[in-house]
């Protein structure tokens, strides 16, 4: 993702970008009309190129009206995707899942590396109180909201009270899920520095761990309620503990290895990241360790236990500049537009209530924590976005409860679609309005406050 530039492109440059965008769409369209039936992998190559180019160009063009680059990537995917122009079909979108794996690895590494202990000490109280209040209020209110709106939800309107409560509880947990990728994406583009950026990053990264833990608990409680048999099993707690402890342990080891590599070799980091993204992720899933938490821990260790943190961040940024475009464009192509058309009233209602709850909880937690004015005013802005993590948890629920899983997942997709489009815009506006967006094009500094600023 391109960062802020020192000089805005001229009108000629924008015109060239516009023409190039049209040419790119036209080329792929022409190729689609004349292509033979070749292996699907080869169609993926053209799709990757298209999404990368269209995403980059559209984001540059939308920059003129103040929209974040993320929105451009998403729109490129939506327009070129299987529901609009059909330039990228469903099968191709599915085949791009390795890109998502790589992107999530980079996001987690960068997220962890951005969390400096000095920063965390400053914002720990704020983040702790915000996590408690957001999670508590969000869970309770959204669970109640789901139950209240259940007559309007197709898969829930005939459920008895107990299973309805179980489903609503799962929905409540999903509602407090945030988007680390969107947060990092906006921060990378705007190169924002300040209390809102610092707080947002720390909160979003911490919320990952909270949500994963809460989802495991919710699944454990919901199972007997929905299926109507058995009690709460402690096996799930054991599994969760194994996953959490194992992730931290693996992540710490990986972080130490990365430190040694960065210190002694320091070359070919792109390939190291690719091996981590493709090879290590598969291995971690095989041993039931959470890759996101592992890489988050690894990035954190590198940053806080060595002087190699900025090197790692710089490398991840360089790779991420390309990978994230494809990641978000693919997410856009994945958005189920017909489903959104069908479910938009209930999805919109849930999104609006979720946003309202988030704002109220944020204002309350800021008052309790004694946060500075920018955080009080804009601290909620990064909490609206939802993306891959939420969708992934939706899949987990769908697999665990086949009886209503399909409908549940559809509703998740619809609400994520809305939050994914609106959230990044809101966060960017917040960073602009709070004056934290940087206009410098220097090598991206960390968003952690410099010692003299605290």
């Amino acid at each position, binding site marked *: 993702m391109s960062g802020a530039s020192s000089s805005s492109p001229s009108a000629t440059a924008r015109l060239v970008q516009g023409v190039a965008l049209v040419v790119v769409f036209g080329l792929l369209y022409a190729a689609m009309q004349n292509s033979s039936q070749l292996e699907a992998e080869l*169609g993926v190559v053209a799709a990757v*190129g*298209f999404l990368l180019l269209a995403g980059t160009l559209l984001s540059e063009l939308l920059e003129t009206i103040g929209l974040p680059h993320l929105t451009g990537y998403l729109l490129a995917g939506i327009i070129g995707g299987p529901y609009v122009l059909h330039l990228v079909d469903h099968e191709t979108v599915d085949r791009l899942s390795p890109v998502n794996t790589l992107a999530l690895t980079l996001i987690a590494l960068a997220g962890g590396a951005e969390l400096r202990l000095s920063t965390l000490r400053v914002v720990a109280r704020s983040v702790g109180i915000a996590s408690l209040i957001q999670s508590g209020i969000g869970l309770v209110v959204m669970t109640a909201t789901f139950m209240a709106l259940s007559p309007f939800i197709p898969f829930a309107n005939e459920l008895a009270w107990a299973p309805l409560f179980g489903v609503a509880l799962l929905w409540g947990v999903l509602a407090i899920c945030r988007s680390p990728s969107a947060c990092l994406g906006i921060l990378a583009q705007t190169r924002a520095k300040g209390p809102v950026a610092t707080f947002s990053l720390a909160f979003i990264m911490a919320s990952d761990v909270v949500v994963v833990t809460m989802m495991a608990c919710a699944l454990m409680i919901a199972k007997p309620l929905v299926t109507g048999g058995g009690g709460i099993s402690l096996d799930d707690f054991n599994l969760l503990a194994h996953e959490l402890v194992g992730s931290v342990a693996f992540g710490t080891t990986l972080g130490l290895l990365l430190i040694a590599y960065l210190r002694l070799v320091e070359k*070919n980091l792109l*390939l190291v990241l690719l091996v981590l993204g493709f*090879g290590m992720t598969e291995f971690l899933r095989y041993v039931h360790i959470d890759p996101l938490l592992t890489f988050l821990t690894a990035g954190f260790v590198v940053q806080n236990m060595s002087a190699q943190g900025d090197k790692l961040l710089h490398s991840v940024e360089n790779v991420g500049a390309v990978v994230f475009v494809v990641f978000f464009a693919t997410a856009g192509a994945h958005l189920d537009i017909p489903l959104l058309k069908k479910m938009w009233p209930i999805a919109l209602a849930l999104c609006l209530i979720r946003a309202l709850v988030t704002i109220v909880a944020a204002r309350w937690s800021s008052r309790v924590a004694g946060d500075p004015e920018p955080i009080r005013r804009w601290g909620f802005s990064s909490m609206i976005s939802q993306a891959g993590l939420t969708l992934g948890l939706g899949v987990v629920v769908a697999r665990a409860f086949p009886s209503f899983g399909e409908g549940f997942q559809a509703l998740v997709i619809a609400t994520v679609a809305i939050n994914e489009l609106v959230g990044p815009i809101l966060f960017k506006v917040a960073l602009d309005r709070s004056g934290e967006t940087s206009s410098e094009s220097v090598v991206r500094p960390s968003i952690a406050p410099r010692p003299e600023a605290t």
Partner: protein
Amino acid sequence: MSEAGGLLVALLVLSYLGSALVGRRAGRVAVGSSGAEYVVLGVVVGPELLGVVSRELTQEFVALSRVGAAWLGLVAGLGFGHRSSRRLVRVTVGGLLAISMGVTAAAATWILADSLWDLEASTRIPLALGAAVVCSATAHDLTRRFAPVAAADGLAGLLSDIARGSTLPVALGGAVLLATVPGHGLSEFTWDARYALTLGTGVLLGLLASALLAREFRQAESWGILLGLFFLGSGIAVRVGVSAVALTFTMGLVIALVSRHGSEIRQMVEPTSKAVLLPIALLAGAAIQPGIQPLLGLFIVGVLLARALTSFLGGLLLRRISSSIRRAGPGVGFGLLTSSAFTLAVAVELNYALPSPVGPLLLVLAAASSVFGELFGSWQLVRSLRGVSEDDRAAPVSEVPSLHFRRDS
């Protein structure tokens, strides 16, 4: 982890090793410029010998191989950054030399394919044309070692320019070959229209890249645009059945000649060539089918002898017109037997794009030419260069490998 996932990680490790070898020497001998040793490694670990990599597994990486080959085409095209008339003359000489080597290789192929296998004309024609394509170019990677101490007028610089020119017929020949293959997505067009579309699309993408990167050069943004255009172009080319390598070569050539940031883009991209070449070479080696035709060894020897003879005669001719080459001794022509990564890339593409037995035969031929060139041609080239006192023994090793084309000072 799945078998394919394991192989992918192994290929990434190989890429890593390739990157680490940039600018280094393996003892006193420069690291192979065509990836020949990795082709051999691929044969060893492939289904014909150790069986570590099965033939089915290589099929899973067809897309990777073809995209990697197209990337090497882009790198080759970006190498054309010169504008001086003297270098143009050298490049032209190189092109003519390549054509002559290609013609003799094609003739030898035609004759041997008829006498050894009694192949029909419809098979012999693409086979002969393909042999011309994969047996024409020479490599200048080795001369890069000598470039730090060699003046532009020195033998190393001269041979480097000649070798660069020899890649043009390879790219154009590959484009023609694939344009004539039946079963296209563009079947309603004639072969010359397909050929024009291939090159025209490459030109269009090159112009787009130049226009989009005309602003201040920012590496992250440049990578996004370059990779996007590359994947789009190569993906479309493979989808409709034309030569992706020729398309990306043309794109690179246009960028090199037109873009104001051509040299920065070249310096950005060149270090990736080794990292891409080695996995491609390994997969190519594993894909080789030595039993595709009987008496294959005899066929290969015959074609390579024809190439060697033309190369030698070409060297004698060059000695008559260039004083630098005259000082190098009569064997300098054999130094032009070295094969380039670009040739291997074209052979990989032809292997997958052309029907059997043509495609696999061309891959075997290219691999054999590459190995032969590394063993014999490299030795002769170094001997010739040392003979004119362009000694690499005290030369610092540059970090930027292969295909680098110096601008005129």
